[in-house]
Structure formats: C-alpha cells, structure tokens
C-alpha cells in the first residue's frame, strides 16, 4: 500500500485515496473528436514515470497529480490541482 503525501493533509495511506486517470487521458470537452479518441484509447503507458490524477476522497477530497514510477511505485512528486491551487 502506497504512502501518498497529500499536499493539504501530509502523508496518508493509499486507502484514503482514489485513482482517477493519467493526465494524458484527460478529455477536453471543447476539443475535437480525434483528440478525444486519442486521450481515451491510445495512452502512453510508459514503463517509468507517469503523471496521474488522484483524489483524497476519504480525507480532504482535494485533487492532486502524482508523478509515480510505474515499475518501482516510487512517488517522485505530488502537486495540488483544483480551485485551491489556482494562482
């Protein structure tokens, strides 16, 4: 079980979080069909670092992006996103 450092709450157990998707599979509702299909069906899936969207669902409910290594499961960075993280 991972230990994820929530930008708002600090280090917490993975069971408090839910995985949403990688950042490259975000579909822009304003975008064209071609780009949307690419995001939905042809993802990078690298054997290495990837950026993933997670939510601290059973905690503060905030959203964040984890830079996680897909083989070693090391989490290199956690970045807050969402309204709280807007400049």
């Amino acid at each position, binding site marked *: *079980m*991972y*230990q994820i450092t929530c930008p708002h709450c600090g280090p917490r*157990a993975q069971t408090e979080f*839910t995985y*949403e998707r990688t950042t490259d599979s*975000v*579909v822009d*509702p*304003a*975008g*064209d*069909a071609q*780009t*949307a*299909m690419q995001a*939905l069906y042809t993802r990078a899936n690298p054997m290495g670092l990837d950026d993933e*969207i997670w*939510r601290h*669902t059973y905690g503060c*409910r*905030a*959203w964040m992006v984890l830079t996680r290594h897909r083989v*070693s*499961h*090391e989490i290199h960075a956690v970045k807050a*996103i*969402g*309204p709280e*993280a*807007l400049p």
Partner: protein
Amino acid sequence: MSGPTRVPSGEETIEFTFDGTSYHARQGDTLAAALLANGIGLVGRSFKYHRPRGIMTAGIEEPNALVTVGTGGRAEPNTRATDVFVYPGMVAKSQNRWPSLSFDVASIFGLAAPALGAGFYYKTFFGPAKHWLRYEGFIRRAAGLGNAPTEPDPDNFSQSAGFCDVLVVGAGPAGLKAALDAAEAGKRVWLVEQDAVPGGSLLRDPDPAIDPGAMVERIEALGGKVFLRTTASGYWDHNFLTLSQRLVEPGAVPPHGFAQRLWHVRAGRVVLATGLIERPVPFANNDHPGVMLSQAVRSYVRRWGVVPGKRVVIATNNDDAYLTATALVEAGAEVVALLDARASGPAAPAGVTVYHDARPASVSGRKHALRKVTAVIGGSEQSFDADLIAVSGGFVPVSHLHMQAGGKLEWNVEAQAFIPGSNPQVCETVGSALAPPPAPAVAPAGKAKKSFVDFQNDVSLADIDLAWQEGYRSVEHLKRYTTLGMATDQGKTSNMVALSRLAEKQGVTVPEAGLTTFRPPFTPVTMGLLAGAGARNAGAHVRRIPLHALHEAHDPIWQPLGYWFRPRAYPVNGETLQQAALREARTVRTAAGLSDVSTLGKFEVSGPDAAKLLELVCATTVGKLAVGRGRYTFMCREDGFVNDDGTVWRLAENRYLLTSSTGGADRMAHFMSYVRNSLRPELKCSVVNVQEYYGGIALAGPKARGILAALTGAEPPRHMGYAPGMLAGVPVHVLAASYSGERAFEIHVEASHAAAVWQAIEAATRAEGGAPYGLEAMELLRIEKGHVVVGGEVDGRSTPQDLGLGGMLNKAGGFIGAAGLTRPALSDPNRNNLVGLVSLDGPIPEGGMLIQRAGQSPQGHVTAAARRIIEGGAIALALLQGGHHRHGEELIVTSPTRGEKARVRVTSPHFYDPAGERYRD
C-alpha cells in the same frame, strides 16, 4: 528400545490429546517436541501417496507434520506441529488418514505411485467431461490436507495500524542487536518474532555472551515494542508490512475474545534478521519418520531436552552438522556414523566415526523410527543400524520479505545459495542470512523415484526429471506441472533442492534456471484475520433512509438498493408481492399513491457558472431553463454512452438542483467533483452533494394535485415546474416531476423533518382512496410509460439515440461525451434500439432473446417485462437491432434457461399516454 525419548528432567505437567490419546508435555514444548518426547514419530500421512510422515524440522518450514488443532469452530487445520505450543487441554488430530494413522487404507496409493507421477491429473482424466464427475469425489477424499471447520469461528480477530522508525524482523542474535542499537539511538523500535521466546539460533546454539531476555528488557525499557508469536507475513509498497500476531495458540480459548491481531505497519526502516532454513538431502525413502534436519535435531536436544534418536547417522555437506554430533553425544545418544560428502571436514567429537566422500542412499524403518541407513562411501555401499538420520544439505537464506519488497538476490557458489542483495525500499538484511556456511553441491546417491524433494506435495526427483522430459523447461512451468513448492510451506525446504535438479538437467547454473516469485504471506494466515470485524455482518455499513422506521411499521417486503433498503411492496391481507404491486400501481393510476424516493442522487449546484458546469455534465441544454422550471436530463460518459439520468431544476437565478439515479449516486458524486475541481477548476460555482440531506417523497396519481394543494395551501406547480412551499409546518421543495406517467410531484424535505411530511401526505392520500406504493409498483408504472432505468435499458452500451433520447441532445455540443458520440459506429442504423413489445400470447420472459425464427441468432433482448396495469396483457421493453425502424414486426422472445417463449409485436416503448395528456391539469 529405539526412537525418540525425553531426557528425564523437569516436570511434564501439561495434559493434551493426540488422536484421542492423552499425553503430557512440558511448559514451552511445541506439539512436535511433546510428541517426540512421548515416543511418537509417525504424525501424518502424505498428500498423494499416503506415505507415513514424521517430524522433519523444528520450525515454521515443516512440510510433513501437519495436524488439526482445536475443536468445533475453533479447529485450525494444517497447523504445523512445530509451530504450535502445547497448552492444557489441547486437542490435536492427525490428517489425511482413514481409518487411523497407523493403518491407512489409501496408503495403497504408494504402491500405485508409478501411475500417480507428475501431471497425473492431466494425463489420467482425459475423456468426456462427465467422467470427471465420477473421479472428482474420489480424488477429493483421497488427496488433500486437513478439513476446514464447518461451524463459524466463535473468536474475534482484530486489526490495528502501527508506525515505527525501525521494524526488526527476527529476534535472533542479529535482530536483537539491530533492535537494541536502534532503541539506544532513540528510535521507535518494533521487534517481531514468530517464536514464543526470543533468541532464534541462540535457543539451539547458546552463547554465554548474549542474553536474549535481558536484551528484550532493555529494548522495552527504552520504549521499544517486542511482539512474540508475531509473523511479518507480507512486505508491500512504501515500507508497509502486515504482521499477524497470535494472541493465543491455535484452538485455544482466548481470554479476551480475540484470537489474533493483524497489524498494518508503516516503518521508517526495516531490518530483516530472518536467518536460514536448512536444506534436506534427497535419498530413497528420505520422507520416513526418523529423517530429520540436522539443526532441528540439535534444537530438540538443546532447547526441549528431547533426543529424537538413540543411534544416529548424520549426513552433511557442511561443518554445521558437526555441532549436532556434539549435541547428541552430550545428550547420551550414539552417533554411529557422520557421513560427510566432502573430502575433508573439521574435527568430530570423540567417539564419532567420520566417513568422507560419503552420501546417504536409502533408509528403511518401522512405524515411529528408522531401522537401517545405507550409504555410498567412496563408491561402495555400507549399512548402519540406526533409528535416526540427521541431514544437512546446506542452507537457504530466508529472503521472502526481501523479495516481496522488490529486492534482488545474489548467487553464492560456495554456499550454493541465493543471498539477499540490493533492495529498492528502505530495507536491509542482517545476520546469518547474508553468510550461509559453505556447502558444496552433492549428487544424490539414492534412487530418484523414492527420493523426495517436496514432502508436502509428494514430489520426488523422478517427478522433476519426468517434467523435464516432457518439455517443462521453465521453473514456473515445473512448479505448476508437479505442484512443487505449493501448499502451506510454499517450498521452504524444497525449492532449492528442486531448482538444483532442474539446473543440472538444463546444464546451466542455478541462477540461470531462475526462481519462482515470492508472494505474501510468508506463513499461512487464517481468513478470519483478513476479514477482521468484517467477518460478522459488518462488511458493509448499513445506511437507513430517513423514513425507515415509518416503513417498518407497515411491515413491507424490503429490497436492497445501493447501500439502503427500500420497500418493494406493502402487502395487505396476505397478498403476494405481485398482487400487492398490481394493487398499488392501480391505485396510482386511478387515485393517488406515495412512495419513498429519498435515495435519489441529489446535487445542489450554485454560483454564476452553475449553468456552465451543468451543461458540461448534462447532455441536454440547461442554460435556457427559466427560474422555477426543470427538465429531464441525462449524462454521458466521455465515450458517448449514457451513464446516468435524472432531472435538473433551476431553483433560483444561480442555483440548480440536479437529481440522478440511486445506484449511480456515488459514481456521480465523484464525477461531479472531477469535472468541477480537476477538469474546470476556474469555474465560479460550488457542487454540494445533498443526497442524504433531503428525504424525498413522490406523490403520484390523478388526485395528487388536489391532495398537495390542500396540504400546502397553494396551487402546486404545473408539470416540470418547481415551487418552494410549507407542508406540515416544514419548508419543502416541490418538484412537479413524473416517473409513473401520472400527474406527480417529488417533495424534498430536510431529512430530520421527513417523517412528519410523510405522515401528513399518507393520511391525506389514504383519505382520497390512495396508498403507499413500493419499487415493484414503480417498475410496473415506468415500464408501461416507457421510462428507462439505469442498470436496465441504460446498460453502459446504449447511446442517447439508441434510447430514443437523441432529440434532446444539446445541439451546441460542448458536453462530456459529445466528441465520443461522433464516432461513426455509434450512428450505425443496426445498433440495438429501445423498443416496446406487446405479447400476442402469454407472459414475456424477462431477459429473453429476440429472434425471428427458431435456430436464429438473437437480434436483441428483453430488458424489463411487465403487464398492462389496468387493461392486462403482457408488455416489455427491449433493445433490438435497428429497432427504431421495426415497429409492427412480429418476433419471438425465447428464454432457453427458463424454457419460456412468447410471440410479440414490436411497438413504440410508450404504451401509456404517449402524448403526455395526463400531465395536464
């Protein structure tokens, strides 16, 4: 006399039974030690051939001596006799024998061994599948381990979370030192040990300079925690470990009700001081009682005062076994021969004859001990009269946790062993696991067929050779074909012996042959421990709708829905479910009915950008809604398929209420949060999940409007209108929405006031000849009206067009799923479309297939079947290929599983009031 005995000293005060006979044990005895002390060498029968098996080890790696401990629901099958400490009144039974341990009918399988070799299941049971039905019962009775208890376990299992700076696994000399060093450096230390006492190898080879008890006291005095009878059973990501702690021995009655505790521990650093496991030696009949690992013999002598044999042969390829010779001589046993496979070795104790270049070839024996050991010494055979052989084929570092953590292994040629190497987690291995004694590879001297490698699964050298011959080259294939390394010991004593044989066959080195994957748990974990409190009906929490108690008073038929229970029907005067549902539905069609809709998903969206957010989430237009109006809406997934449906209402200029289905409410809540916070964080709006904040009551029927007007003192809003109001002295939201097809309202009220509002509406409705209705009546009403349901017609594969909702799509696009809907395949005219079916004969089987003629492939299926509420006659909703253009066609609905059939005519799905005239006042 020969065989195992106890050195007389100390009192044997604990009484226990084994196979119904009473024996005595000493405080601190394992069951294995106590059985040996009582002269019992035969403890069980083997898995496949029912060969007599004894005690081979003195630890958790024991493959042979599996027993069932305890009675009733507390019985624990497949407990290693070497890993359970005797307590007063303990009841232990041998396994896999019938009618008794010493006379076992199925041991005749041993004679049939040539036919039961590797892969015999695959080879023998070819042929028609029905033959398997005959074999199965026989195989299940004959092959197997202990039986699972049939009664529920009366004990509780607890789960706890823990944190520490340093977690040390293993309280042997290296672990004790690591834990004490860390504690003295001011760290929070946890030390876990699977044994009941600390010391590890010191219990077998005491060192006057090290006092384990004193070290434990010092660690605890410094604030450290020491857990005995606790196994680190799993090593997961980010230094997270699971520990299984025995609070009482298997089968014992726990004084505080808890038998075991599962710890979830996050450790800053992990130190593995897990030591070594000794390798057995393959030779003919090496599975007989009286064949024991050398260090185990030493443990029984030194720790428990039990001498497993009087005349002992020792067979070794390393120096460690010489210590066993010393221990045996000290205890008064005779070491008749020390067979050393090497050309030279250390000095042996006085009176012990050492033979070099000597390997055991076979043994033979009687029930509880051996009779004869035959060895090959320098090329010629020689026999010894002996009741025990202590063997050592080298050592295997315990690297299971290291490997679960993602570690690497390094091959040590001198010791013929894999040593823990680098580890990606904050974890290091210390102690003897890093330095196994040198032990060269030795060619087996006995016949391969009776030379066992995996004692628990009856796998011999010959089985490995056979698997190789038949083309099983990979170690993973070998494992699956021969069952080597499976079951409770997971190959702790067998894997390396087997791997050496495979490497030899392949003509490669052992590391080139590869290893199977190490997976948790390290030793077996009982299911109850993993379930914890969830074992007792607490797997999922119970949520009660605000009106639960009021419904209960009517004694309805309940139906689980999402996390909740909702009334399915309210039968009166002995009605069946169907009778009650039909009466309730007719009441709605002719007078009025009220129903609990509290579980609907509900979201309040407010702020200047509220409409913008809703137009992303909903596939219909929202922005054009006037204040005080609402509309039906649906939401799509990004790939264009319908995800959920509901209604959206404009309560005020910048304030909307969105409802969605009960079952999809959690999914919708997550989705709304994703869209609002992750996808469009810049929007100025808030989304509040008010699903359980409001209780909801639907009031439907031709008399609904009059009832509501009288209760609120105001003219209710027209169809799809919204108005705030007061009812029973409580503020309510009135939404004029209809699911039933009648003029209807949803009244949403703060949950704590819902009961008062329900009671007022129920009284007024009953006074008008109405009644409460449940989910079953609601189903009859909505099918007749042709309304879709999420999980029925909305099955994750239907588009808005398939469901006849295409005309409602937001033409401007921009909603989630708009891009997905442009995929050409989604506008194929032959897709499954929603249609209605009217029966031309009997009832329509739900879930039935739609075909044109018998023998044809199905062209669709029935999603929901019902009957006309007033008129009678069977109707159904269905998804049919190209259905929008096939109204009027005659088809057959067939359900081969139910053996039912009906002729039907395809129609529009709107059977009842298609023009919506009943919504008008």
